[in-house]
């Protein structure tokens, strides 16, 4: 396999890992943020947590794998991005730690104050994570100050520009909608109606934000800098988002879930095709951008990693998919059936 082929392959593989992460952990984040608002009574909150209890940790591994794969395949990208977005990533880690530990610990003590504290930590941790991930990706699309030595020269406030913030808030909204759809599929009875009512409101806000983000991206010229034109992909993303609203109004949660999931996938496809072959655009000087060519590992490492991925990715997909199939039943608020 030629060196360039491998570099493109790994760009695509990392894109796939991020798509998988946003698709799966996206609804986890949404469920987490909705938890204190949709769960009135303790068993309702427990039911909400139980919808993702068996899968959230596995979903989060997509992020770890995306990080590890970036390190292995594009060490310069990993080094520049992770050191450059230092404080943002620190806050992301705090968010992930708080929500992760809270899932496991909140129901292990009966005191209402204990539980309430962990519930809010789940919500705040999920919110923080979604916001920061969205802002980080928006900044990658926009470009960040990078010098000739592939070093990030900004700070946390560099990332807090209007486009970055809009990207963050829109991501929060999409994940809320994705989470609400997921809850609609997993809960039953009165809870299901409550979720549907909330989803409709979230959908309206999300759609406005999403279109705003799209217009901003287009007007600011952020999507014409790579060599691939995303073409109709972003338009399709808007269409599926509109369709999600249509299905929500008819209480067809399954279809609405699929539409929002597609929206997330298509948004990521747009993002990655917009940037290709750049992985980090330099706003200081476009020639100093990190690309798949100047940021990648050696041909040998990419070859080895391709073989590893070829063997293990299908296995992982098979058993993760199988888990969802095993736990496909709806979750009731019956205390005897709740685990977390």
């Amino acid at each position: 396999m030629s060196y360039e082929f491998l570099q493109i392959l790994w760009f695509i593989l990392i894109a796939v890992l991020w798509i998988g992460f946003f698709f799966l952990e996206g609804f986890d984040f949404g469920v987490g943020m909705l938890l204190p608002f949709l769960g009135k009574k303790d068993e309702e909150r427990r039911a909400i947590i139980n919808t993702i209890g068996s899968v959230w940790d596995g979903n989060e591994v997509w992020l770890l794998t995306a990080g590890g794969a970036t390190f292995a395949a594009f060490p310069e990208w990993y080094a520049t991005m992770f050191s450059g977005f230092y404080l943002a990533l620190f806050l992301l880690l705090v968010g992930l730690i708080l929500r992760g530990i809270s899932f496991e610990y909140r129901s292990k003590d009966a005191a209402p104050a204990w539980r309430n504290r962990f519930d809010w930590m789940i919500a705040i941790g999920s919110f923080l994570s979604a916001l920061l991930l969205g802002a980080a990706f928006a900044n990658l699309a926009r470009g960040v100050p990078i010098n000739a030595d592939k070093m990030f020269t900004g700070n946390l406030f560099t990332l807090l520009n209007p486009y970055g913030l809009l990207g963050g808030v829109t991501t929060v909204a999409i994940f809320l909608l994705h989470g609400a759809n997921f809850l609609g599929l997993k809960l039953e009875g009165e809870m299901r109606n409550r979720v549907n009512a909330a989803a409709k409101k979230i959908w309206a806000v999300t759609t406005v934000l999403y279109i705003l983000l799209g217009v901003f991206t287009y007007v600011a010229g952020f999507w014409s800098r790579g060599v691939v034109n995303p073409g109709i992909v972003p338009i399709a993303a808007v269409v599926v988002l509109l369709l999600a609203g249509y299905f929500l109004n008819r209480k067809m949660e399954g279809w609405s879930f699929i539409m929002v999931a597609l929206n997330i996938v298509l948004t990521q496809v747009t993002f990655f095709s917009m940037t290709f072959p750049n992985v980090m655009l330099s706003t200081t000087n476009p020639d100093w951008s990190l690309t798949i060519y100047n940021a990648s590992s050696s041909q040998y490492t990419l070859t080895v990693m391709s073989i590893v991925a070829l063997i293990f990715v299908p296995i992982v997909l098979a058993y993760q998919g199988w888990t969802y199939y095993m736990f496909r039943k709806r979750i009731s608020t019956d205390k005897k059936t709740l685990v977390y």
Partner: protein
Amino acid sequence: MDIVILSRLQFALTTIYHWLFVPLTLGLGWFVAFFQTRYYQTKDETWHKMTKFWGKLFLINFAIGVVTGIVQEFQFGMNWSEYSRYVGDIFGAPLAVEALVAFFMESTFLGIWIFGEGRVPEKVHLASIWLAALGSNLSALWILLANSFMQAPPAASYVFNAEKGRLELVNFFALIGNPKGWIFFWHTISDGLAMAAFLILAVSAYHIIRKQNLAFFKLSFQIAAVVGLVASVLIFLGGHTMGQYMREVQPMKLAAIEAIWETEQPASFSLLTIGDLSGKKEVWSIRIPGAMSFLACNNFTCEVKGVNELQAQYEQQYGPGDYVPLMIVTYWTFRIMMAFGFVMMGMTAFFVWSNSRGDITKAKWMKWVPAMLILPYLANASGWILTEMGRQPWIVYGLLKVQDAVSPNLTAVDLLISLIGYTAVYGSLAVAMVYLMKKYAIAGPDAAMHESVDVAPARVGSQD
């Protein structure tokens, strides 16, 4: 403040903390899998209770290892970007494999195990705990292979690419066949088993002295004593092999942990040494003649190189600089680790012997056992401090120094924010974790039988 010192401090804090929880995960997973297998085979309710009770403690501990593990993977890039650029071509590979092969397996199957009882077929449920335990231990293997590249980079595995100014992988099998990594792995998984054994011993002893659930805890104690003994012998053998390998690949570390200033043949082992303030000269010591030669090469006559000779040699090889690790740390952490390791071995041997002689539940010494839980934790932390500080000033032994590896764009303010932040978050996690561990350990097996915690006594912890 210096960003190198702050970055090192943060790495030490987050890594030592992470490693307080991981060994228990590594070892206790096997225990729970074994208990559940016995239950599956015999349908005896005692084994079921054992699975549930020790499984609860396993899960409470597991959660902290998971959430602090994400920090571990991110901070190479966040704090050590120049390191990541210089060796990412090599070091990134085992990390990516760890995530893909081990983390997915561990998290997915543990999820099935936690939620699956009564929902998935019994065989699948049993297999899931074995796979989760295997996944954790596989992740240990991959991260240790990565770490062993920093300790003893195999010459056949890499080349220097002058054009890109970095090291590149040329032989993946040399990287993953690194003997250092496999000895580490052996030492580490047996250490995990010993840690788990001591937790079971301590909690069982707590209940035995209170005459609660005697049959349950006596059986737990007996199993843990045997496993603890076997594991501590394996730890010793692994450590001994590591010492001999160290003589070849990290002679300076070996000299520094033994406080051998001048090259000796045969080399004596110092039981106790007092050095002068510079740490470069010996003032007084008690020594066993020839013993160091035995530790380093299995005979009583071989030569062990001293710190001063190695320092001179390294200056010639790598240019001026201080190549001696902080000896007061390497010397004492090594002795703490070894001493506690031997105490653990002796104690578990004593437990096994006592058990063969009569009823251990009536033994007077039982009341001292719960306090012994501290031993594996201290031995463990000491061992890793020794391993990592003995590598100084190198981040990759002989190839890259720590001071050249840090992220140059960070400011002291950035680092103080994250350092204080991690300390606060990790501190609170520890408080919650210790509270829950104590609560469930004290509540005993009956409370752990309820899948839903609501059904469990609201105020567990009463002594009777």
